[in-house]
C-alpha cells in the first residue's frame, strides 16, 4: 500500500481574533492537529487598544478541506470572523522581503539593475554586498529571489502575506 496525495488549491484566509494570550498557538496548533497546511502566516494587532489582531494565513487544500478549515477556525472561542479572500474574488496580497546578495564586478552591477526593474530598494550596502527591500505579491518576490540566485544570493527574510479585499467594504 502507498500513501496517495490529493490536488490542492491555494487560499488566503483573513482571521480576526481577540488578542488574548496563546491565540497564535491555538490557531497554528489547530492546523497541525487536523493535518492542514500553513504556507504563510502573518499576525499583528489592528486596533487602537491592541485588543484585536488580524491573522493572514495562506493555506493549500482541496475545496472540502478549505471549508473545514474555515469552520474549525470559526468555532474557536476567541475568533471574531474568518474570511476566505480567495473565495471572495479580487483581493490584494502584499509581502515584503529582505534579500542579501554578495558579489563583485558584473554580478554586482546586474543585481542593482534587476533591483531597479523590481523596484527593490537598497537598504544596506558594503563594498561586496547589498540588502534589498522588495515588496509585492508573493510571485513577484519568488521571481526576484530566483533571479538573485544567479548573482550571489546569500539569504532571504520574508514577512509572509498580508491581504485585503478590493473595494470599499471591509471583508
Amino acid at each position, binding site marked *: *500500500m502507498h500513501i496517495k496525495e490529493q490536488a490542492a488549491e491555494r487560499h488566503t484566509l483573513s482571521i480576526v*481574533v*481577540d488578542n488574548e*494570550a*496563546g491565540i497564535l*498557538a*491555538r490557531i497554528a*496548533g*489547530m492546523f497541525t*492537529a487536523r493535518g492542514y497546511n500553513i504556507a504563510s502566516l502573518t499576525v499583528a494587532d489592528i486596533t487602537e487598544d491592541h485588543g484585536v489582531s488580524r491573522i493572514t494565513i495562506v493555506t493549500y487544500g482541496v475545496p*472540502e478541506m478549505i*471549508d*473545514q478549515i474555515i*469552520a*474549525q477556525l*470559526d*468555532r474557536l*472561542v*476567541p*475568533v*471574531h470572523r474568518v474570511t476566505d479572500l480567495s473565495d471572495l474574488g479580487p483581493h490584494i496580497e502584499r509581502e515584503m522581503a529582505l534579500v542579501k546578495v554578495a558579489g563583485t564586478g558584473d554580478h554586482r552591477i546586474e543585481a542593482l539593475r534587476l533591483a531597479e526593474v523590481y523596484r527593490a530598494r537598497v537598504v544596506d550596502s558594503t563594498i561586496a554586498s547589498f540588502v534589498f527591500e522588495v515588496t509585492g505579491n508573493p510571485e513577484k518576490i519568488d521571481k526576484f529571489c530566483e533571479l538573485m540566485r544567479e548573482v550571489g544570493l546569500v539569504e532571504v527574510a520574508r514577512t509572509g502575506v498580508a491581504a485585503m479585499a478590493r473595494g470599499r467594504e471591509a471583508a
Partner: protein
Amino acid sequence: MTTERSGADILVQALTDLGVEVVFGYPGGAVLPIYDAIFKQAKIRHILVRQEGGAAHAAEGYARSTGKPGVVLVTSGPGATNVVTGLADALMDSIPLVVITGQVPTQLIGTDAFQEADTVGITRHCTKHNYLVKDPASLGAIVHEAFHIATSGRPGPVVIDLPKDVQIAAATYRKPEGPLQHKTYRPQVKAEAAAIEAAVEMLAAAERPILYTGGGIINAGPYASTLLRELQALTGAPVTSTLMGLGAFPASDDAWLGMLGMHGTYEANMAMNKADLILCLGARFDDRVTGRLDAFSPESRKIHVDIDRSSINKNVRVDLPVVADVGSALADMLAVWKARGHEKADLGEWWRRIEGWRARQSLAFPASDHEIMPQKAIQRIWEMTKDKDPIVTTEVGQHQMWAAQHFHFQDPNRWLTSGGLGTMGYGLPAAIGAQVGNPDRLVIGLSGDASVLMNIQEMSTAAQYRLPIKIFILNNMYMGMVRQWQELIYASRYSESYSEALPDFVKLAESFGWTGLRIEQPGDLDGGIEAMLSAPGPVMVDCRVAQLANCFPMIPSGAAHTDMILHAEEVVGEATDEAKALV
C-alpha cells in the same frame, strides 16, 4: 462596596453562585489554598478520587446523567496531565466539564518548577477553551464565562489554570447579573427559517425516510427527546441512533431499528443504505457510522442538523445543512409540519422492506448450556433491571458493543459510554459520578476484565462514599475487541491480547470493602444478578463468559453497510493492507 477576598475564595464563591453542588478532585501543593477554602464552606461537596483521571471520568458520568456540568479540581503538573484523557474524551463526546487545575506561582511559570507543566499548552487542543488566570480580579468573570462556554453551543470541557499566587492574592468579586454576552462566542441556537421549511418539505416528500439521531439530542436536554418522539409519530419514519444517542428514542417502539454503524443492526444499516432521505439530528457521520464513505447511503438526500458548523460536510456532503440546537430545530420543524398540514405519508412499502431486514435477526447469538454467552448476560441484566430504570455505564470494547445492542433504553441520560475517544477506564469512575449525581438510582457499570483494571483504584472512592454501584465484569480473559480484530484481520495471531495474571476480582472487591461475587455457570446467571442487585453498597461481579465469543453483526473497517458480517462463519482470516490501515 464589595470587600476583597482571596482568589481561592472567589473561585469557591463563583462555583457556589453557579449552582455547583459537587466537585471531583484530588488535592496537591498547587491547590492547597482552594482546598482550604473548600474546607471552610458547606455548600459544595468534594468527592475525593484516587487518581485525577478518575475525577475527569466521574465528572463526565455526573454530567451525562444529570445534564449539569461536571466540575473537577486537581493540582498542577501530574494532576493536570492525568486529566488530559478525560478532557479529550469529553471534547469528543461533547460533555460539559469545567476543570480547575492548580499552577505554580506566576513568577515560577517557565522555570521548570516542581510540579510545573504547561497546562494551557497541553490542554489547548483537547478542550473547547482554556484559560490561564493571572489576576484574581478577572477570576470571577472567567469562571462564569467558562461555565457558559462549557454548557452552551456544542458542550465541551473548559480548563481554568490557576497559579497558586493568584489563589492567595485578593480582589473583589461580584456575581454577574443577567445572561452572559460573550464578545466573540455566540453559538447559533435557532435555525434559519428557510432551512427548517426546506427540511420539512424534504421530509414530507420522502418515500424512504430515516431519522438518524445522535448524542446532540441528549445534550439538547430531555425536551429534545420528547420532540423527536413527536416528529417520529407525525412522519412514521424509522429511527436509528449512534452509540451516543441511545435512549433519545424508546427502544420498545416499533419504529426503533436499533443502533447503526459498525456493530449496529442489519436493519438500521440497510435502511440507511437504501433510504431516500436521511434526517441527521445531532450526530456527526463518524467513521464508525458511515463505513466506506463512497458507498454510504448512495441514494439519499441528506439533512444535517448540528449546532457545530464544523461537523457539517466534514465526512459526508449533505444536501441541506441546518446549524442549530437540535431541540430548537425539532420544535421549529414540528411547528412548520403542523402549520402546513402535512399528513403522514404512506410508508408501507418502505416498512415492508425494513421488516424483511429485521427478519434476519442480526442480533441473534448462539446459545450455550455449558458457558455463559456474554450477550445473554447483558440481556438478563436488562430484563431483570428494566423496571428499575437503571443508569448504565460501560468501558470500551466488546462488552460495550454488546451492551449497546442488548441493553435497551427508553429515555435519555441513562446510557454513559465513551464513544468518540473510546477510553478504556471510563466506566468505573463514570458510574461513581453518576451515582453521586443520582444517589437513589440503580447504577450498573458493565465492564470487561481488561478495561476495568484501567481505573481500578476508583473502587476505593466508591468505598469511601458507600456508593452502591454495581460493576458487572464480562470476564473472557482477553482484550476481547483486540482479540476479535486479530482473529478477523490477522489470522488469529493473538499478539498481547490475552489478559495474563488477572486478579481474583472477588477478593479484590472484598479488600476494598465491596461485595464480590462470581458467576461461572449459565444456570447461576440469574441468581448471581439477583445477588448483585440485592447486596447493599458497591458490588463487583466477576462473570466468566465464553472466551472466544465475537461481537456481531459487524461492518469491517472500510466496508459498505451492505457488506455486513452477520455471523462468525462469514469471516475471512487475513485482511488486505488497505483494510489493515483503517482504524
